[in-house]
């Protein structure tokens, strides 16, 4: 049992006092910045970057990694409590998590998020240890055609995101798509819909869209009705999930972990997409899909598990191929490079203390996160008893800080306000923000990969059907379409 020996060795490294301290500092800081919208792991890691010059490599990377996955834990807190997505990946958690809070079940929602994250984090770490290199190679089989087919499947499946009118849902996806294409086009280098504004050349940031649509719009709606907001604060029932909650959340957590682990390995898709994908999956297979969007615990457990699993497996391309899968990973890679450590398949042999120490520290970090987060649930729930007239200015302030900190440019704050107004208008029209956000995430990815696949195939569309992985996704897409259309047609037949 080589792995076992290696893990024992890794725990030996991670359990040194110094490494434990840095691990704790990392996850505590990660939780904190996860709670703040916009102030993401990327900014924090980059800020702490100079400190790592003076640290040995192992504690440095343990701390930076802790910030990264710690942020995935903290991100759900504000999503659930005040509909404010603290992290990109937590936007999906807003949908059902916030509804649970409105029904007085903020405690169980927060605890479920923490436990699901813990489970997913442990499994994700195990995957890195057991199958890191082979999963890294697997990611290489995903070319432009495979990504296109995957995105197409996700976009078709997105129809289940909508709660009410399908036409409105579709319109929201398209609107999101349009917001997503603002900025420089990858293929031609031309700026689209930028109206000559330099700030728009890089597109509209995810934080701007998510915070505007969810948090700002929600606040505007709440302020409109004087008493509606106080309703749920009185009846907070139970801090911890009941046995039934745990049973309901168990399988969604497992499925979320599986979906998240796959997306995490694929560069460029990341935690945000994984949480959307798993949410759609849960809603699709649920016995009663109408519960989703009204506080279904599965809608919290699955996406939270997915984004945490993805956060963990995102280390695989970096550690085994030496390639960063995201900007955050790029900064961590730079931290290692500056220490004179080159990552790649040989890192396991060149620097076993780094590789196995990091993996063991992730387990410890995940355990620390649960210990840190569960007692905090009570504190967070208390926050809801703060009168709304004090709560909402603070939320707005956090929204502004978060948006400003991404680029240090006030433009993003104004843009978020504009999108907040848009979100309010959409709420009045009973259009939901989730499909819009999904269109915003998926649209540009689909376009980018579709055009790339066709460039590579020299315009031959059969490429999507001749490559096996792509073909499998295409067949799955078709099945989803059939499953969606058939009951609808039957329903019409019966006159319901």
């Amino acid at each position, binding site marked *: 049992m080589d792995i076992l020996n290696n893990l024992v060795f890794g725990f030996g490294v991670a359990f040194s006092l110094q490494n434990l301290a840095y691990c704790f500092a990392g996850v505590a800081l990660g939780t904190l910045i996860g709670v703040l919208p916009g102030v993401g792991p990327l900014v924090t890691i*980059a800020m702490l970057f100079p400190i790592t010059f003076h640290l040995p490599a192992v504690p440095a990377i343990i701390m930076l990694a802790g910030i990264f996955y710690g942020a995935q834990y903290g991100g759900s807190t504000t999503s659930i409590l005040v509909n404010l997505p603290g992290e990109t990946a937590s936007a999906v958690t807003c949908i059902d998590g916030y509804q649970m809070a409105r029904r007085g079940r903020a405690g169980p929602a927060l605890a479920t998020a923490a436990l699901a994250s813990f489970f997913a984090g442990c499994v994700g770490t195990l995957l890195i240890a057991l199958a890191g290199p082979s999963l890294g190679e697997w990611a290489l089989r995903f070319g432009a055609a495979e990504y296109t087919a995957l995105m197409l499947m996700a976009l078709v499946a997105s129809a289940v995101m909508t709660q009410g009118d399908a036409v409105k849902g579709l319109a929201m996806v398209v609107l999101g798509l349009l917001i997503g294409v603002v900025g420089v086009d990858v293929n031609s280098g031309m700026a689209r819909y930028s109206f000559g504004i330099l700030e728009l050349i890089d597109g509209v940031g995810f934080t701007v869209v998510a915070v505007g649509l969810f948090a700002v719009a929600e606040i505007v709606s709440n302020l409109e009705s004087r008493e509606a907001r106080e309703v749920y604060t009185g009846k907070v029932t139970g801090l911890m999930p009941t046995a039934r909650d745990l049973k309901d959340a168990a399988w969604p957590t497992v499925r979320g972990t599986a979906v998240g682990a796959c997306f995490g390995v694929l560069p460029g898709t990341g935690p945000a997409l994984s949480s959307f994908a798993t949410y759609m999956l849960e809603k699709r297979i649920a016995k009663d899909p109408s519960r989703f969007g009204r506080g279904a615990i599965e809608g919290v457990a699955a996406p939270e598990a997915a984004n945490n699993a993805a956060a963990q497996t995102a280390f695989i391309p970096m550690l085994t191929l030496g*390639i960063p899968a995201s900007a955050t990973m790029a900064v961590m890679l730079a931290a290692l490079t500056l220490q004179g450590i080159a990552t790649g398949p040989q890192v396991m042999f060149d620097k076993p203390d780094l590789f196995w120490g990091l993996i063991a520290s992730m387990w410890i970090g995940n355990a620390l996160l649960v210990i840190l987060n569960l007692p905090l649930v009570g504190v967070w729930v208390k926050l809801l008893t703060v009168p709304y007239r004090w709560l909402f200015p603070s939320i707005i302030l956090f929204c502004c800080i978060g948006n400003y900190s991404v680029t240090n440019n006030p433009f993003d704050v104004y843009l978020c306000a504009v999108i907040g107004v848009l979100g309010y208008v959409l709420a009045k029209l009973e259009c939901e923000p989730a499909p819009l956000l999904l269109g915003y995430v998926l649209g540009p990815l689909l376009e980018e990969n579709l055009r790339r696949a066709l460039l590579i195939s020299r315009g031959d569309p059969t490429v999507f059907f001749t490559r096996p992985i792509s073909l499998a996704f295409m067949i799955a897409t078709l099945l989803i379409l059939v499953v969606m259309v058939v009951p609808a047609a039957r329903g019409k037949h019966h006159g319901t």
Partner: protein
Amino acid sequence: MHVSSATRLLALFLLLGAAHAALAQAPYPAKPIRFLVGFPPGGTNDIVARAIAPKFSEYLGQSVVIENRGGANASIATELAARAAPDGYTILLVAPGHATNPSLLKLTFDSIRDFSFITLAAESQNLLVVHPSFPPRSVKELIAFSKKYPPGTINYGSSGTGTTVHLSAELFQFMTGVKWLHIPYKGGGPGLIALFSGEVSLYFGNVPTVIRQARDGKVRAVATTGLKRTPAAPEIPTVAESGVPGYEVTTAYGVAAPAKTPRPIIERLHADAVRALNSPDVQERLKNLGADPVGNTPEQYTAFMQNEIAKWAKVIRAAGIKGE
């Protein structure tokens, strides 16, 4: 006593005035200096700035505070610098895109006339790597191989349109007459993965990002893009020495101040920036990043910038790349 309050007030004003005058005449720099960086924290630009800033602060006797203003390939920060007061308290990390942005974007400032260039801080090269199954082993073989097939048969990847990774290939095609097909990716990571998987055959990656993969045999190194071989891999020939004389692409990071910054201040900034670049700490950090510290004179740097802007304008026009 009855006049004392007025006298005291007068005395206070005089004192304040004197203090103000003293501050105004205090030798430069009398307060912290803002160092604008055109990318968010964590990118190479930011890391270069953060590698230099501590020593730079130490020698100037004032802190050099990094301010990240990301966006539009550094042109948002560059515009801020162009519009800042020319008092020596705002300086800019000149990004590699400074030479290409005038040809790609509609800028509201002049990339030469609105700046006092201080020193070229560091340069790094790109390395042409190919998929291991791709037959050509040298630049000469690559040119011959490319000409054997119809134009546009071979795919090359890049980290985005207008990046040095892309433009290295464009300059190569411009100077040799071969024609490849450009497949742009969003960032260096996805671009490299595409090379690993064979989706593209060629890639001009920044030396530090591809050198290890080349040594591991995941990709094959063909040539570097500098005029001289890179100290990081002296065994790899340059494109220029392999049959394309005059071919040169570097990723250059420099320091500049707004135009009309007084000459003595420029000289002070230049002296301390060069001292910082020569300190062993900074040299080692930059070398780990695969960048070679430079530290030339303001005149040399200005001439370099003028040349680069003219060169890329020509290549970008010839390649038919349209920006905004």
